């Protein structure tokens, strides 16, 4: 089977990708982890301090409160995507399968359009729409005759995180729709015909036929959601700025990383603590990815 490829040719094929990948991805990741075990003295000397930075993050009265808050918010942010975005996405994909390819393409494209917009655009669009001054919300309140004052959904501590999570769900629902739909239409046509002929109910067919066949794709969608959510930054930064207000109620690990590294207000930036936050994010993401690779990819790679 072995093709008569020379070592030189193989290096030529793999070399450029490996070079860029190692220099601008692998090396920075390793260097970040290394930095998280050091402290900076006199602006240029790195001094090994073991786990001290992580101890600060987890136990220091000032930092730990912010860190646990960001982690908790991030978990809520993820759960909203996992249990609202993904099930609705699967449902939309299931509805699409019954339609002609042409009709399905139309709906799929429309649902995917918000995903193609940058966070900056999505952030501002929803900021304007939910702004109490513009009154889109108050018009809707009139339509449904709700008498209360228009709330500042993005401005209240109690609603800001939920609102931003739902905005993000609105933006990214196209991904589960697209991937699950692609998986559903590659299910053997005979099986789908049999379901129709036997007049199997929608839910029964879903749980007994569709679900077992698209389960690897659902796992893929879940891990993509997990990675993207625990790395989220842009939407919060656009809508609430690096301080993730009000009172850090929308703070995620990504915004915390930014503030710790670059500094904010009177707090000056700290390279090593910033690296520690990044390393914590790396570990959190790595745990999810390892579980995914262990259970799902193992089968594929064999």
């Amino acid at each position: 089977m072995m093709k008569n490829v020379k070592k030189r040719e193989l290096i030529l094929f793999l070399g450029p990708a490996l070079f860029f990948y190692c220099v601008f991805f692998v090396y920075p990741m390793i260097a970040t982890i290394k930095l998280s075990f050091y402290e900076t003295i006199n602006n240029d000397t790195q001094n090994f301090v073991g786990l001290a930075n992580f101890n600060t993050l987890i136990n220091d009265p000032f930092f730990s409160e912010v860190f646990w808050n960001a982690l908790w918010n991030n978990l809520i942010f993820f759960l909203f995507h996992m249990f609202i975005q993904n099930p609705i996405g699967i449902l939309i994909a299931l509805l699409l399968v019954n339609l002609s390819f042409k009709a399905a393409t139309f709906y799929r494209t429309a649902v995917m359009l918000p995903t193609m917009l940058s966070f900056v655009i999505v952030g501002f669009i929803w900021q304007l729409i939910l702004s109490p001054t513009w009154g889109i919300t108050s018009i809707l309140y009139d339509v449904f005759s709700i008498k209360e004052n228009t709330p500042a959904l993005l401005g209240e501590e109690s609603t800001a995180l939920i609102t931003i999570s739902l905005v993000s769900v609105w933006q990214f629902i196209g991904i589960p729709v697209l991937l699950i739909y692609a998986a559903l239409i590659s299910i053997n046509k005979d099986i789908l015909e049999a379901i129709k002929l036997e007049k199997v109910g929608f839910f029964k067919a879903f749980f007994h036929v569709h679900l077992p066949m698209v389960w690897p794709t659902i796992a893929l969608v879940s891990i993509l959601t997990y990675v993207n959510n625990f790395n989220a930054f842009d939407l919060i930064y656009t809508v609430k700025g690096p301080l993730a207000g009000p009172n850090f109620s929308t703070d995620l690990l990504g915004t915390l990383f930014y503030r710790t590294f670059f500094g904010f207000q009177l707090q000056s930036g700290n390279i090593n603590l910033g690296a520690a936050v990044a390393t914590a994010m790396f570990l959190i993401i790595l745990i999810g990815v390892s579980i995914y690779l262990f259970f799902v990819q193992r089968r594929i790679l064999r």
Partner: protein
Amino acid sequence: MNKKYLLTHTALALYVVFALLPIVLIFINSFKSQKDIFDAPFKIPSTESFTTIGYQTVFNNSDFLLYFVNSLTITSVSIIFIVLFGGMAAWGVSEYKYRGRILLSLFFIFGMMIPVRLGTIPILELLQSLNLTNTHTALVLVYIAQGLPFSIIILESFIRDIPKEIKDAARCDGVSETDILFHIVFPLLKPALATVTIFVAIPIWNDLWFPLVITPADGKQTLTLGIQQFIGQFITDWPTVLAALSLAAIPPLILYILLSKQLIHGLFAGSSK
């Protein structure tokens, strides 16, 4: 329309309204004056209320065109290298059998899962030592690393689908492996470009993080960052903000609509095995 699927169509149509209404609302209001935006936000601009004042302010007060060209340059240069190096690497890991091949594949998959931005601090130090701070080259270098894993995985699945006979025929004629890759395989990868563009180029175009930390000023901004800064200054001038948002939204939307049809075929190739 098939009557049986009336309910399906209704449900989907309702969701489409929810997905698109916010975008449409921004777009129609961008052609109205401040007063009309507030008085009747749902009205389509009439011949009297139609105005392009917002768009004029955008073009007169900002480096919109400059940022647009910046983004276009950065995205297209990145994507060329990502497809070129990604295609070469995909060929290298899928066509030949050698020790460590699976490990190499896993090594690249790993990069698709772990976000490059977690390595930002060393990246900035590295760029400083290379004298590349606040340059577009720096952004391109980072984006190549960021885009390679996905491009390799997608192109790999397309390469595996190329019939063995085509390659073997060329080998029998004594064509070198390099020539097979560049003259036979690469042209066959065209259908994969839609998928790679949507999942690699559009995120680069939309990225806020790296422009923010690498090229935050001096006219080096990308469109996404430029719009972010511009809207911050004009936040009370709604026609201008809405016009800026509409202009920034159009390129990725058009690109996606054009490529959307090929996209599902691209995913097919990846998921059919």
